[in-house]
């Protein structure tokens, strides 16, 4: 007897969003990345195909980060001192996008120069984050946004207490924004409303629901993402945005990934453990509906890519 699998019919869908612009579209990227467009819960192929597969961004910094794990220092080596080099190596490692984090030491001129050097070193679309302090973010992101008009960068990170300046400059210069709220469906939705209220076109917002690493609250992040997707599919226009999450940042904060000495022997090989941690965190988030995962280690990138491939073709 043939078994008929019951299918859900949803009223809403996730918006498809394109990052980066080629020369034909007014930018300089060699290719663009399109994400979103889902019409059902993640990877339920019997209900609907996944129109755009999740993509991986590799996180690089404008200056060599002193507090990163020695394992990351080792694998990226000298490239970490030159963001352009680092971006190039990231592209070789299989990144779909580059996520460039500016630091507090960067002056507005530095920021513009570094972003431009990364843009010329790679043809990938670019995400640019301010250093993470409201005033400083606004100070560096505005000139970067103006100097890269038309590139369709993703600028971030917008939060409820500081979003106006970033949104305004992104609107004026044809960029996208990353909207981060602290692991709460309502707060995510509220920030999306605030940004839309400023007149930002809906296809230029990517939401960042914030997440935790494996063992550090990932289940909470997972369920928030799941609920955001459910709300979107049920027709809530203010949650119908693709999601970006930063499992690399989260996983490499954990003691398990960061530290190799003075830990129980039963934890096993440090390097294997650290990469597992980042990989598992990222894959779980992909399964809960992430459209962009931002990673740090090239080995994790390869493994998450494989996992995505399996999810898509399974």
């Amino acid at each position, binding site marked *: 007897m043939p078994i008929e699998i019951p299918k859900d019919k949803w009223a809403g869908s996730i918006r498809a969003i394109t990052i980066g612009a080629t020369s034909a579209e007014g930018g300089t990227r060699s290719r663009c990345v399109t994400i979103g467009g889902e019409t059902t819960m993640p990877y339920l192929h019997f209900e609907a195909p996944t129109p755009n597969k999740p993509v991986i961004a590799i996180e690089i910094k404008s200056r060599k980060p002193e507090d990163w794990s020695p394992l990351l220092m080792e694998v990226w080596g000298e490239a970490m001192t030159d963001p352009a080099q680092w971006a190039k190596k990231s592209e070789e490692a299989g990144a779909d996008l580059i996520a460039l984090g500016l630091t507090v030491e960067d002056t507005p001129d530095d920021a513009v120069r570094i972003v431009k050097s990364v843009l010329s070193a790679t043809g990938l679309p670019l995400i640019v984050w301010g250093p993470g302090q409201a005033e400083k973010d606004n100070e560096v992101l505005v000139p970067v946004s103006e100097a890269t008009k038309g590139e369709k960068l993703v600028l971030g990170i917008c939060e409820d*207490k500081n979003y106006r300046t970033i949104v305004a400059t992104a609107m004026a210069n044809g960029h996208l924004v990353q909207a981060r709220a602290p692991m709460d469906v*309502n707060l995510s939705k509220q920030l999306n409303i605030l940004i839309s209220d400023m007149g930002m076109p809906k296809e230029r917002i990517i939401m960042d629901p914030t997440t935790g690493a494996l063992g550090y609250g990932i289940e909470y992040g997972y369920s928030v993402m799941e609920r955001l997707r459910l709300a979107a599919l049920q027709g809530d226009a203010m949650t119908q945005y693709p999601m970006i999450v930063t499992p690399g940042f989260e996983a490499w904060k954990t003691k398990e990934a960061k530290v190799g000495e003075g830990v129980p022997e039963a934890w096993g090989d440090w390097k294997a453990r650290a990469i597992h941690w980042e990989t598992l965190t990222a894959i779980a988030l992909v399964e809960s509906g992430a459209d962009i995962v931002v990673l740090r280690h090239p080995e994790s990138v390869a493994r998450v890519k494989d996992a995505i491939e399996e999810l898509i073709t399974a």
Partner: protein
Amino acid sequence: MEHSITFTGENIDAKVKVSTNTLLADAAHDAGIDIGQPCGGQGRCGRCAVQVTSGDVRRRSTLRLSLDDIAQGYALACQTVVEGDVAIYIPPQEKIERRLTTDRVVAEVSVPSDYEYPFTQSVRRMHLTLTPPSMDDQTDDWSRTQTAFRLQHRMEQIVCSVGLLRKMGEVLREKDWRVTAIIETGNLEEGHPTRLIDLRAGHEDEYAPLWGCAVDIGTTTVTLWLVDLVTGQVKAQVAEYNGQISRGEDVVSRIIYAAKKSGGDELRQRVLDTINGLLELACKRVKLPEGNLTPEQLVKATIAGNSTMMHLLLGIPASNIRLSPFITAVNQPPTSTAREVGLNISPEAVVDCLPGVASYVGADITAGVLSSGLDNAENVTLFLDVGTNGETVLGNRDWLVTCACSAGPAFEGAGVVNGMRATTGAIEEVWINSETLEPTYRVIGGGKPKGICGSGLISLLSEAFLTGILDKGGNVNLTAGSSRVREGAHGGEYVVAWGAETESGEDIVITRVDIDNLLRAKAAIYAGFTVLAENVGIPLETTDKVLVGGSFGKYINVEKAVQIGLLPDMEWNRFEFLGNTSVKGAYYALLDWRKRERISEIAKRMTYIELSADNSFYDAFTSALFLPHTDLRRFPSVESALGKV
């Protein structure tokens, strides 16, 4: 085409010629008449209403005008153009404000029609004339007094305190063995003997005032009404911040403080100081032929307050209120005396602490239910107490369910930089011109402003939101384009009154931190009643009436409270503002023992729902943490108001 427009009114008599389609407001301006337009001429506030007594006009918008108003010729000067020769009457501003339908003003307190001293009053005075002692009759003073009670009033088994015995000998002899006894009538069948409260020399006029007070101990504000128990009239109403505020703004931090070494004693003393101070203040307002009334003359106090406040007043440890499963030491405290409690009124005066329901639904709510009449309502009614502990009761005469959530003191003016209680000098209403962002405000008492009270904060928040000074998240838009919007020490702020206009000479502002506190308060209250209604399965819009209590002002502008998402978006005429329902309930219980018994019944009938039992409250809270709400579809009237500004 030219038309001639005449204006009349108090001290107004002017004529001007204007062309077709000129706004009445512009015509008035040309005639040298200033018609106030607080909202900036957008037809939002209705303050510029004038009466067209003859001639043709065209009303672009009639928002704020009822059909009745229009029939009477009312038109908004900022929204009405002339189409012919017109005669206009400009009514005095007070008349306009009274006519506006969205303000809900608390009714004056009136003595309940069924109050009849001494029949429904548990405390009364009695005249005694004792037979003087002699060598033949060496009966002791107290037995002699009891004999007089028995022979002259048929009263047996009266109890008397040692304190009264100490002064008895002197009092009996002062006016030749004629005395006035103040007693609390007992009920021997229930094991309560009649108790002697005071003994006064001579025969007082039987219907001279006998003094008592009703008290509401709020977490933030303590309110006291001084009452003549003979006529039932309220003779003074006073309020002050609870002296415990400096030791924690909410009940939880008070409980924690009370658990510290001597913390409980300190908090008890602080609230006693507040009440005793209010007693002094209230007594000063009553002039008697023999001088001012003194607190020692009060013979009864009825006290309402949340469970924590009641515990702290009585010096009962409150720690278990805070700890799961949230148990009070007592919900129905026994009747006590002023001496025992520590009130500076007549030492043996009755102190009646009203009964509560649970840790977070106290006597303030049972008293509030009584005074709001919710327990007799035919249809399902929602009762909200907009106070520090945002309690909600839903029900009717057949059932009552209740919940509580911590809202914080913002609507009582505490925890807000320029907040204050609703008293003289408080800004109680604000309008902001959406073009210039200049405010117009009204001050209680009409003098220079000292701060902003709850009702002022509600209208300020709403106006700042509608005019784009605030975004939906409550962020101050520093690029709004006015010098009043500026960066302050704690983020963006809006200047409501410049130093030159204020009592202190300092600017009166609302800051980002204030706005966050107000948002949290309104979100907690909104989430409380929505989750309660969901729990019971009653859609909010089917409730017949919404009764609003709170001590944030003498009125609430329902429209403004809806615009910030504090109250549900329903027809304005379904709201009623009752002011401080808790002190009013205590007042009823002070007067009438039947009402007092009713409160005990109400306490037994109420079903308490614990909001922390699942996640639904938190979810409702964060979604309400937005202006007016994350789900704008719940607020259709606000959606349309946003479209208009």
